């Protein structure tokens, strides 16, 4: 029991440390980029700021997936779609900011519309010249799609692999739709050539640093919100639905609503990640809806350790750093490496990096306790080895010790 408390406290401390690091990074990295001379050893080059800023968006996306997959067992293979929709909403705002500075110099229509012989702005582009409107759409569009999709899927009690498949189908359908020129989102080429965001040049170092800081602060906030959700009674319920859905129903809970709430919150988080991503990479195109993108997110979360909040963030950073390195050295082998990594993690590190770290620390602690006891000449097994303590991160997603597997009722 005391061990349980300690580990629980440990997990909360881990969250606090993560938030602290993110907030520190949000201040320090821009400073080292902007205020330090490029000749200094402490200088952070702009391309590193841009690259890590992108990684932070991926980390936010992985965290969003963790809320539904790690804590509710919903293996969404379509989270890339919510990310891309958030990205498109931001991209539309950035397109409108170009004004008459486009290649065709048309003050009313973005370049691709002029090129495709549009006579006027389609109605769904109205409002996107305002940042506040775009910001609302960044939240509303992915949220609404997730709500409607989840409403039907969870009500019809689609679960497991079938649910995963229809989430893939959803992102694939959106991919095909956004590829079409007559959809009004730039077709194949997507939206690009951005100039300003909120009046600042998107290419400028200061703007890039600000976007980086915004990403880090948002991620810190998302970590806090996820931690608060997961720690609430609703969070317990979420895990209860994951572990024994029918038990929750027979206790009077509506499991479909429990899932729907988490799924919607998660989609909104993914949308925000996409919106932060687009101004940093300078383009959004239908490729972001590619089903393999969504699968990659699952790999990040699995590598870091699902159901641990911090794990998927670490996973996203580590895997993407690896990807950047790999695609520089052996570009054609990256997909094999990714696939191999997923298989290896599933086989050897079912609880991911965080799970491995915890069990290693747990063992080390038990060993130390035993040796201290021995030195003191007492019975070495007095400090009972931890039983299934609340998985280090109070995460039932990681099943330490004898694993309580999710079980069907009856």
């Amino acid at each position, binding site marked *: *029991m005391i061990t*349980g408390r300690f580990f629980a406290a440990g997990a909360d401390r881990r969250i606090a440390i993560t938030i602290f690091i993110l907030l520190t990074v949000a201040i320090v990295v821009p400073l080292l980029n902007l205020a330090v001379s490029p000749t200094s050893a402490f200088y952070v080059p702009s391309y590193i700021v841009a690259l890590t800023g992108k990684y932070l968006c991926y980390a936010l996306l992985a965290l969003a997936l963790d809320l539904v997959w790690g804590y509710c067992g919903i293996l969404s293979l379509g989270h890339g779609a919510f990310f891309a929709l958030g990205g498109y909403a931001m991209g539309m705002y950035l397109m409108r900011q170009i004004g008459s500075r486009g290649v065709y110099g048309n003050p009313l229509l973005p370049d691709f519309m002029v090129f495709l012989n549009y006579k006027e702005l389609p109605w769904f582009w109205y409002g996107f010249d305002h940042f506040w409107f775009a910001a609302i759409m960044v939240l509303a569009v992915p949220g609404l799609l997730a709500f409607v999709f989840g409403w039907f899927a969870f009500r019809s009690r689609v679960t497991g692999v079938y649910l995963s498949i229809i989430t893939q189908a959803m992102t694939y359908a959106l991919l095909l739709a956004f590829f079409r020129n007559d959809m009004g989102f730039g077709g194949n080429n997507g939206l690009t050539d951005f100039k300003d965001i909120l009046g600042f040049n998107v290419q400028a170092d200061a703007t890039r640093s600000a976007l980086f800081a915004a990403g880090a602060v948002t991620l810190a906030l998302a970590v806090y919100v996820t931690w608060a959700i997961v720690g609430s009674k609703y969070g317990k*319920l979420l895990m209860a639905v994951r572990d*024994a859905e029918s038990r929750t129903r*027979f206790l009077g809970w509506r499991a479909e609503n429990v899932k729907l709430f988490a799924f919607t919150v998660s989609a909104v988080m993914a949308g925000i990640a996409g919106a932060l991503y687009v101004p940093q990479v300078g383009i959004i195109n239908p490729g972001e809806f590619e089903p393999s993108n969504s699968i990659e997110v699952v790999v990040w979360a699995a590598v870091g350790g699902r159901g641990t909040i911090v794990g998927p963030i670490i996973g996203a950073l580590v895997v993407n750093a690896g990807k950047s390195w790999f695609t520089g050295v052996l570009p054609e082998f990256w997909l094999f490496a990714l696939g191999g990594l997923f298989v290896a993690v599933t086989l050897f590190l079912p609880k991911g990096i965080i799970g491995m770290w915890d069990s290693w620390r747990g063992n080390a602690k038990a060993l130390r306790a035993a040796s201290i006891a021995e030195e003191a000449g007492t019975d070495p097994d007095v400090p009972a080895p931890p*039983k299934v303590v609340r*998985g280090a991160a109070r995460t039932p997603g990681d099943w330490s010790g004898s694993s309580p597997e999710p*079980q069907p009722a009856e």
Partner: protein
Amino acid sequence: MSKSNTILYLDGVSVSFDGFRAINNLSLVLDKGEMRAIIGPNGAGKTTMMDIVTGKTRPDAGEVYFDGEVDLTKHDEAEIAMMGIGRKFQKPTVFESHTIEENLMLALKGPRSIFPALFHRRSAAEVRQIDDILGIIRLGDKRDEIAANLSHGQKQWLEIGMLLAQDPKLLLVDEPVAGMTDAETEETARLLKDIARDHSVIVVEHDMHFVRELGVKVTCLHEGSVLSEGSLDFVSADERVVEVYLGR
């Protein structure tokens, strides 16, 4: 038959799975405050009967009424649970990754929507209720233990405790002593008799010693309908019951 004063009323209920009649013209009446034991060989339809009452399975034909007036075939699991029917599964099902206290907290009667759960704070009254239940199910010293660490028998008790926390009018208890030691079995019989003082209860069990301990009216199911009903002595003396149990 009149429905008044019944807590559960099944009449002419049938259900088939792919042409196989698991429940066949079943009629069963439970009075308010009554405890009933249900026995019957494997596959007799005992669990399926509970599935029908709790809204998991829809009957093809027949009437299912709760409390004399509520047509249960028109409601789903969550609604039926909220009306006051609690169910213990045949295979003990608790939330393995949560503590005993959290298991009971999730079962405790109260609002069942998302936002109250999101902003829920544990109240002193809830702690007291949980204390009471922990005492009743003999897990008082295990409050902060993870449910996965409990023995099989303790999980059965925890699940019964979760039913009590729901504060139902009717408890359906499927094979509560499977996998228990003799001492635990006796304890469970005592526990259920306690519960039956202010609840209506249906207990499905194969263990005849346990059924004898309960000392209540017994219904024997076979091939989806009632084969025999009465005191345990009466039922076990019934030739047809002897026949289905000893093989054909």
